[in-house]
Every structure is written in C-alpha cells, then in structure tokens.
C-alpha cells in the first residue's frame, strides 16, 4: 500500500542524505521525496512517498525516527488527509488537436501556462492518481516533457505536524 510519510527534520547540511541513505542502505523504495524549509527556518519538512507491506512501513517509520536529526514524523495514510502534487506537461499541438486538448485540460482543472505555435505547457495539481489520469487521457505521442514535483500532503482537521 502507498504511504505518505511527513517528516520534520533539522534544517542541517546532510539531513536529506541521511534519509535518502537510510532508504538505499536498507533496501526500501522511495517513490517520491520533496523537501523544503518550513515557517520555522531551523526545520525542513520532507514528504516521502513509499510502498511496502505493513511490516516494512513499520520498520521504515522506526528507522526514520532513529535518525538523530528527525524531530517528528507521521504517516499521513493513518488518518484522513489531503494529497497534492504539481505537474507541468509540455504537449505538442496542431490546429486540429488544440481545442480538444483545451477541453481535456479544463475537465482536469488544469491551466495553460505557455502557448506557442506547436505546443502548450499545462500546469496541473491534484492527487498523484489524478495526474496519472490526465497523462493517460492525452495521446502519449504528443507529450514532449513531463515534470512532477512528487506528492506533498497535510492531514485534515485541526491536528498538525509541528513541534
């Protein structure tokens, strides 16, 4: 099952490599990893998407907690949460395909950021599954480039991940 692990970690040089190194050393898989500083500049927040059996996920969480720089973490999959990922797609267009493509973008509530004679750049946010659905809804031969941010997430309700 897919798990989204949110981590508050000391904003120190090398903190990211401690997390990435743990995953490679112990053979866990990372689907995506995003990192950015938080409102408290001494802390970074990482969102890590991984898959594994319950046993493996339990070990991942314990091993992450063991890292001295990790301050706090939660598995967002444990409770109701919101997941978002940002994607930008560069798509080949022609006179004939342009209107169809615009309506698909509208259906997915995407935005067109850049237009040239033969291309669009489309911006889209949503769950990773929604972004997958968009890319499979358009002709794969027309896709020039896809860039995805990796998922981030936040829990629903008033509880939050903070110190």
């Amino acid at each position, binding site marked *: 099952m897919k798990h989204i692990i949110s981590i508050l970690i000391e904003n120190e040089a090398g903190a990211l*490599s401690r997390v990435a190194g743990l995953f490679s050393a112990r053979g866990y898989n990372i689907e995506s990893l995003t990192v950015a500083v938080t409102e408290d500049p001494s802390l970074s927040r990482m969102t890590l998407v991984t898959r594994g059996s319950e046993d493996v996920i339990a070990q991942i969480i*314990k091993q992450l907690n063991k890292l*001295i720089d990790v301050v706090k973490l939660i598995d967002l999959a444990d409770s109701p949460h919101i997941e978002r990922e940002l994607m930008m797609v560069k798509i080949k267009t022609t006179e004939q395909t342009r209107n169809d493509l615009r309506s698909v973008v509208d259906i997915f509530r995407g935005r067109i950021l850049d237009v040239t004679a033969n291309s669009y750049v489309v911006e889209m946010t949503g769950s990773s599954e929604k972004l997958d659905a968009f890319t499979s809804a358009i002709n794969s031969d027309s896709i020039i480039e896809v860039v995805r941010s990796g998922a981030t997430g936040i829990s629903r309700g008033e509880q939050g991940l903070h110190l």
Partner: protein
Amino acid sequence: MELSGAQILLQSLADEGVEYIFGYPGGAVLHIYDAIFQQEAVKHILVRHEQGATHAADGYARATGKPGVVLVTSGPGATNAVTGIATAYMDSIPMVVISGQVSSPVIGSDAFQEVDMVGITRPCVKHNFLVKDVTKLAETIKKAFYVATTGRPGPVVVDIPKDMTAPNITVPYKYPKKISLRSYNPVVHVAKEQIKAAVELLLSATKPMIYAGGGVVLGEASAELTDFTRVLGYPITNTLMGLGAYPATDKQFVGMLGMHGTYEANMAMHESDVIIAIGARFDDRVTGKLDEFCPYAKIIHIDIDPASISKTIKKIAIPIVGDVKPVLKQLLECLKENKKQPNKKALDAWWQQIDEWRAVQSLEYDRTSDLIKPQFVIEQLYQVTKGDAYVTSDVGQHQMWAAQYYPFDKPRRWINSGGLGTMGFGLPAAIGVKLAFPEADVACVTGEASIQMCIQELSTALQFKTPVKIINLNNRYMGMVRQWQEFSYQSRYSNSYMDTIPDFVKLVEAYGHVGIRIDKPEEVRPALEQAFAMKDRTVFLDIMTDRTENVYPMIEAGKGHHDMKLRVALGTSMDRELA
C-alpha cells in the same frame, strides 16, 4: 577564558572525564596534537594504524562502560578508522571519534588528504557532525558524548576542519553541563500494563526460556537479570554478546544459543512455549532459518531500540521498549506482587527434558588426542586465570571456542566483535582493556590469520606497557573458512591456507616481547602459567593446534534450531566415532 579550537577540544575531553585518547597524528590534526603536547589531563595512546585506535578505544569502552575516544587525521587516517567505527556500531558500543578535516575553505576541492568523512561514516555511526563554527565546538563535543552514551549506545564522529583548531583564533570556552536535543529523547517510560501482561504470560508458561543478549551488559543490568532468573527458576541462554550477563557456571544457564550454541540451548528455544528476549535482537546467527525459529513460542521482547522489535522475528506477543535495567526491576516488582507462582510441575518436567538434552554433551571433544585440541587450550586458560580474566578475541573458530569453553561469570569480561565480525579486533582491544584495568589478567584469544590483521599493535603494547597474553590457536588455516569449505564446498579449500606463516616467536621478539611456541598438549598448561606469571611482559603463545578441528555444534545456513550438526551424531557411541 579564551581558547583556541584545539585547546577547546582537549579541555572538553578533560571536562568530559576522558582518560585516554587512542590516535595517530597527521596534517589536519597537527594543531590538536600540539595542544595534546601542552596538557596532561588526557593521555594519548599512539597506535600503529588507525584501525587499531578504534578497536583499542572499543575494548576500553566494552570493559569499562565508558565511551572510547579516538583521534585520527583526515583522508586515509579517517578511512582507516571506518572498520573500527562499523565494528562499534554493530555492537552498540559508545565511542566518540574525532577526525581531522581539511580547512573549511578548501572542502570540496579534492584537497590533499580530503575525504567526505561525514558522508563515508553516515551508515555506520549513530550520528555525526561537521564542525563549521569554532564557537560551537564545545557544545558539539558535549552533544557527541551525549548521543554516543545514551539510549542504544553507538559511535559518533566529529569531523573538525583544520582551521577550526588554529592557534591564532581564540574564543570564550564554556563546557555545557547538560545538553538536550529536541530531535533526540532517549528516555522511555514503560506502561505498567505491558509489564503486567508480560508477567502473566511468563507465569502461564510450561516450557519457558530466558534469552538475554548484549543489551543487558550495555545496560548494566546483570544483577537484575540474575535476580529475575533465579526468582522464576527458568532456564536462561545468552547470546554471543550477552555472555557474562548471567553467570555461566550457574545451573540455570544452558549455554550460548545460535549457530554454535549448545544442543540444550537451541533445543530448548525450539520447544519453548514462552520466550522472554532481554536486550537481544534476534540476529540471524541466533535465529537460523526464520520460518523455523521457535515455532511454539509466544515472545516477549525487551529492547531499548524500537526498531529492533519485529525487525526479523515479526510475531512478538508483548513488545516492551525500554532500558533493560528499570524494566527488569519493574518485572521483578510485578512478579513479587503477583500471587501466582511459576507452574512447578511443568517446570520440573521441562528441566528434566533439558537435562536429557544436556546429557548429549554437545561440547565434548576428543580428550585423548596427541594433537593439541583448541578446546583444551581454552579450558586450560580458564583454569590458569581462575575464570577471572578479561578475554578478547578475534573472529573465527577460536572466537567460538573461547565463547564455548570459557564460562564467563561476570559481564564485560568477554570482549569480541559479534555483529560485524572484524578480524584484527582482538589485540588492540586487549590493549584498551589492559589500560583500563592494569592489574587484571587480559588474554587475547586469536588465530594465526586474524592476528596478522592488526599485528603492528604489538609495538603499541610495548610503548604503553600493556602486558597482555596472546593465545594464538595456530591451525595453519583460516579455520572457520576451511570448516565451511569442508561442510559446504566438498573440502575445496580455496585460499583458506597461507603458505608462508611467519615465525611468530621471532616476530614478537623483534617487537620486544616474549614468544613461546607450543607443540604438545602437555606443554600447554605450564606455558600458560609461565605467561601469566610474567606480569610485566606481553607474551605470545604460538600454540600448534589440531589443523582439522571443527566448531560443534553447528546450525548450518538455512536450518532451524532443532537441526544441529553435532560432533557425534545422536545415537552413536562417542568412542566409536572418535576411533
């Protein structure tokens, strides 16, 4: 008080109560060595190779319980230390390793003797630091000791660029008395319900087993473990790392378990219905094949590291995350409050069964041989040292024989590389132990292959007058490799034999020590007595043992505890087998 970084480092170590630093100088640490020269509080032990420094500090730490301290230079000095750091990491030994680094402005430019020490050691340390601000140096040293010695202990590396120790830059010095890290809180409280549930399960057992490991030694909980075991009257086994945690000569002790454990320990684990694992981590050398491990048992697991619980053996009935000492105290209290008693009738039957397994005498060997049996040497070592020596070992057959035939009654007496299995550990570790306990008998049990991996430390032993006794079980083979090749590779002894073994007597004499070669069984006892009588000399006993002796019992890879290879197959006569 304004001090340079180098002075701050030394003053911090002194304020931390450090007695010895084990190290080797080089370019990046010259300022630090100059500060060492100008103080007396901390004594520096100059080794002959940085690996030796880490093992010596490790031996000191294992024997005393205090953190070992190492100082090495950047680049090769740092990488040479990595094996010893990993050794300490695998066995959870508290250690602080100070490594020099090239000056901050040239970091990342492939400068002379530059290596990314923080990067290289990341997977084999509890934590590491790169010092980027000399005003934070004292605080960083305090943090390093705090992290290394609390919770599940382990090595911590502090990488210090050369400019941080420059004599012309001085800053105010104050060593923090206490420190806390918001991201690290090693104190855990155990819920009373967990303790109660554990006691209930323990008292319901008909075939109970206590399985205790190195965590009991590290947690200074031997007295509590002994009380707990005696109150219950249950059989107890120790892991390789746990030997000495419970007195091995006590009748409730059934020997070590695992790959080379006794028949009775492994069979009892296999048949047990309730196992309490105390400061042990279900290592693969203990469990054998996971699917066949303890098939009938409900397991209680006490460990200070939550990640140890359900890591290899998933079916843990009652996990208890906590420090073994207070947890054992809580268990004892709860046992006394509980009106129920252990099931006497079931326990009698269980002990009877265990005695039947004991009668197999799985550690018996041929005592009539004309060749020197390695087991005999260890038994003689035990007698000559009255069972009260500190015994370090290298890695291989000799290590297993020392573990099997020297019953340790006290913790911290058995000092070996259990997790990483590092050849070359024994001699430098023995030097560290002898520095900590100059009056004690210290023996290093080794083999002719292992000893050559750190033999240069004989020179350190002379310089710092650490008269240890080296018991070299010389079988002219890498014995454990040869044994596996005999069992699993139809005796194709690929590269497990060295054609040119040095004349160890001449070699140790060249280093300024006493060397004695022993060829006959009857010479073993007098030689040992002679060696231990020479209180102020390092003595190397080069003992020519039976070349083809194997370590038994053995659980071969991929087999369960009940599937042991014994010296004498069950149901056959010992005499016939040995003839």
